[in-house]
C-alpha cells in the first residue's frame, strides 16, 4: 500500500485546492512548499503567501508543522510566521489531512481571531482600532505578498 503521505501528495497534485498549492521538496518528501492566496474580501486579498509545511515522523498521530514564510500582519500569526490554530495543536485529529489543515489556514486569513492571539501587539491593535489594523494588514500584503515578488520574506 502507498504510504499516507504519498496518497496525500498525489491527491494534492491531482485534485488541487483552489488558491492553495503544495509541492513536496525533492530531497525530503515530508517537507512541502506551500502557497496560499489571500481570501477575497479579506485584507490579504491578491496576496500570495508562502508557507512551509513539515510532516513529523509521527504524522498523522501528530499534526503537521506549518509556518508562514511571507511576512503577514495577522493577530494569530507571529513575527516568526508561527500560526495559532487549534487543529494544529490540541484539536488535531489523524483524520485531518494536509489539505484540510491548509484550508483551515486559509480560513484563518479570512477571519482573524484577535481574542486568541499569538501576536499580542497585532491583536491589541486589531481589537482597539480594527480599521487601522486592516489597513496595516493590506499594506503588508502589498509590500510582502505581491505575486511579482519571487522571493519570500522570512524574518
Amino acid at each position: 500500500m502507498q504510504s499516507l503521505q504519498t496518497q496525500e501528495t498525489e491527491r494534492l497534485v491531482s485534485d488541487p485546492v483552489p488558491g492553495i498549492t503544495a509541492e513536496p521538496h525533492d530531497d525530503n518528501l515530508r517537507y512541502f512548499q506551500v502557497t496560499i492566496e489571500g481570501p477575497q474580501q479579506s485584507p490579504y486579498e491578491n496576496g500570495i503567501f508562502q508557507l512551509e509545511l513539515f510532516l513529523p515522523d509521527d504524522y498523522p498521530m501528530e499534526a503537521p508543522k506549518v509556518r508562514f514564510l511571507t511576512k503577514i500582519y495577522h493577530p494569530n500569526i507571529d513575527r516568526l510566521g508561527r500560526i495559532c490554530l487549534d487543529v494544529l495543536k490540541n484539536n488535531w485529529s489523524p483524520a485531518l489531512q494536509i489539505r484540510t489543515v491548509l484550508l483551515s489556514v486559509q480560513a484563518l486569513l479570512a477571519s482573524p481571531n484577535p481574542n486568541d492571539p499569538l501576536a499580542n501587539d497585532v491583536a491589541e491593535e486589531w481589537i482597539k482600532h480594527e480599521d487601522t489594523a486592516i489597513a496595516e494588514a493590506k499594506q503588508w500584503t502589498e509590500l510582502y505578498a505581491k505575486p511579482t515578488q519571487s522571493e519570500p520574506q522570512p524574518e
Partner: protein
Amino acid sequence: MSKIDEELQLLHQKIVLCVTPNSEDEIDIVLSWLSPTFQPQIPTLRIKQCLKVVFERSDERARFLIEQYYLTLIRTHFFSQFDAIVNWRDMVRLERLYLSKVEFILGAPVYWIQDEIVSFKRVLMNKNIEFKKRLHAKLEAHILDNDLDRFNQLYQWLAPAFDGQEIEFNAKMINLKVDQLSQELMKNNVDDRYLVMNTYNHFIKDFWSKFYKSLITEDDHELTAIIYQSFEKNYTKYKCDEFYTKIVPQFPASRKCLLELRSILNKDIKTVGAKVLENLYHGFVSRFLTSSLLTCEILYFYIKTVKCLKIIDPMGMCLRSLSKAVRKYLNSRPDLITTLVLGIFPLHHDERIKVACVSDGNSIHFQKLEQFAKEVGDFSLGPELPTALPWFHQPHLPRCTYDGNDELLKQYLNWVPEPPRIRLDVEEPEDNDVKYVPPADLIHVLLDTLESKRALVDDLLSVVSGKFIESEEYTLDSEWQKIMNILLNHLEATRKGAVTSEEDDLTHLNDVDIMLEDLKLSSRFRNQVAHKNNAYIGSFPHVKILSKLYWRHYQSLNGRLITSKRKWNDEMKPLVDNLTSIYEVLNVGRTLKFDTGSSSRVSFNMILNSGETKSFKVTMEQYLVISHFQSEANGEVGQERHGMTTMGNHSLPDRHHTLTSLHHLTSIPKTKLLTILSFWKQKGVVLEHPEGYFGIKDET
C-alpha cells in the same frame, strides 16, 4: 607553304649538298618514297637503284640529314593521323609502316626510329584519351580472362611508354583482379569460413603465378601482403553491405562469416572497425526503426542483430548506440511492453491472447510474434566461439530457464534507467571514465529497450498471479518459480534500498509478498479443513484465499473476481458453507467471499442419457449454469430442490431452461448467461430450441 614544308625543303637542300657527286634526281626520288603516304610502299626497281646510289654517295652527315628528314616526315604523318588512332591496331599498323622503310634500307630497326615510336606511344597514352581508354580496356579484359599471352603482348608493347606510371598501372591491374575474384567468390557467400584466405589462394594460383613476371621484376612478399589486405577490405565492404540483407537474417548459419569479419575488424578496431560499426548502426536505424515495421518485427531484427553484433563487436561499441536508439524509438510504441512480455515469457497460446487483449495489443501479429519469441529463446550459438566472448560459453538454456543464472535477470531488473554513454553518437561527449558493459544476455538486451522496467514488472505480476491462481497447487512450476524468484530478488533489493526505490516497486514487493503469504495460508487452511472433515487431502478441493486488494494484477488481466450476488448450486453450496464456517472459526472477525466467476474451476464428467460420458474442466460459472440442466431424477439434489421424491432413473428427461429461469437459479446477469450458453452450444452440449428455451443436446 607550311613551316614543315619549309623545313623539309631546307633539309632536302642540305642533303643535296652533302651527297656527292651530285645526285639530285635520285635524292628527289628517294625522299619522296620515304613519305609514309607514298604509293606503292614497296620500292620499284628504279627506287631501289636510286636508294643504292644515294646511300653509296652519302657520308655520316648526309645520312643524319636523311634520318632527320624521315623523322620529320613520319612525325608530321603521325600527328596528322593522331585523332584517328583509336585502336591499338591502328597504332600497330602505323608502327609497322614507319619501321618498314627503315628496315628496308638498313635491314633492321635502329634506336632512333624506335625511340621515336616509343615517344609516339607515350604521346598517345598521355594525350589520346580514347586510345588510352581502349587500350586499358583491352588489357583489363585480358586480365579478367586470365589471358596471359594477349595481355603480355599488349603489356610488352606498352611497357616502354609507361613513363614512370607503370607502378600505378600495375596496381590498377592487380586490384582489378582482386575485385573480380572478390566479387565472384565473396559476394553473397555468408556460409564459408576462411573466405579471404581461400580467395587469396585462388588469386595466387590462377593469376599471380602467371602474371607477376609481367608486372613486377620479382615476386615481392610485401606486395602480396598488400594484396591480401585488399581482399580483406573487399570482404569487409561486401559483408557490411550484406549485413542486414544476408548475415543477420541467416544467422546463425552466417556465424562463420561473422567470425571472419571480426578477425579482420580486430586488426584495426580504432579506425576500420569503428567505421564499420558506425555504418552498421546507421544501417539498422534507417532500415528497421521505421513505422512500417511492427514492434515485434523490430525486436526480432534487433535480437538477431544483437546476436551478430555480439560476435563482431565484443566491446559493445555499436550495441551501446544501438540500444539507445532502439529504446528511444520503441518507447513511443504503446505495444512495446506487451510485445516484450509475450516474447520473453513462456506463455501458452491462449495466455498470449489474453495478455494481448488486455493490453490493447491490437497490433500484435501472432505469427511474427512467434518468430520473435523463438529468436529470443534461441540461445544456441554453438560451441566453437572463441574465449573472447565469455557469455557465449555459458550454457544458455531455452528461454526463461535461468538455471543457476538468476543473477543475470536480477542484475537486469536492478538496472537503473540511465541512458548509456554513446561513443558513436556525435552529439554526446565522450566519457572514457565510464566503462560500458554490454548486456550479458538477450533478456537484458530486450529489457534494455525499456525506459523504465515498471510497466514490465506490472505485466509480469499479472501473468505470475494468473499462474498462481490457475495452478492446481500452491506453488509455481519450476520454470515460473525461477522467474518469480528473480522478480522477488529484484523487489527485495528495492526494499533494502540497494537500488533506487520507486514507490511502485515497494508496492509491487508488498503485493508479491502478500500473494505468497496468501498461498501459504491457503494451503495450510486446506489441510486444516480436510483434517476437520476427515477427508483425504489429495482429493480435497483446492482452495485459494486471496487478499483481494493485493491481487489487482490478477484482476487487471483476468477480470474482477465475482464474490457476491450469485447463487451456488446444491452441490457446491455445502462445500462452500463448510469452508466458510471453518474459516470463520479459525479467523475471528473474518469471512470468505468465494468467486463464482471464472477463477474458480470445476472438472466433471457429464453422463448423458445416451450413456455417453464427456469430461470437462470449466470455470465455476460455466459449471453452475450447466449443472442446472441435470435430469430431475438426479438423486438427493433433485429431492432437496423440489421437495419431491423421484427414484434415480437415467431415462428421465433433462431439464429445459429459459434465460429467465437460469437467471433466477444462478443470479448471473443475462448477458453473461448468453455467453456461457454459447460456450456450451459450441461444445455441442446445449441446444437452443426455437421456442426460446435451452436444453441438453443428447437425444438419439
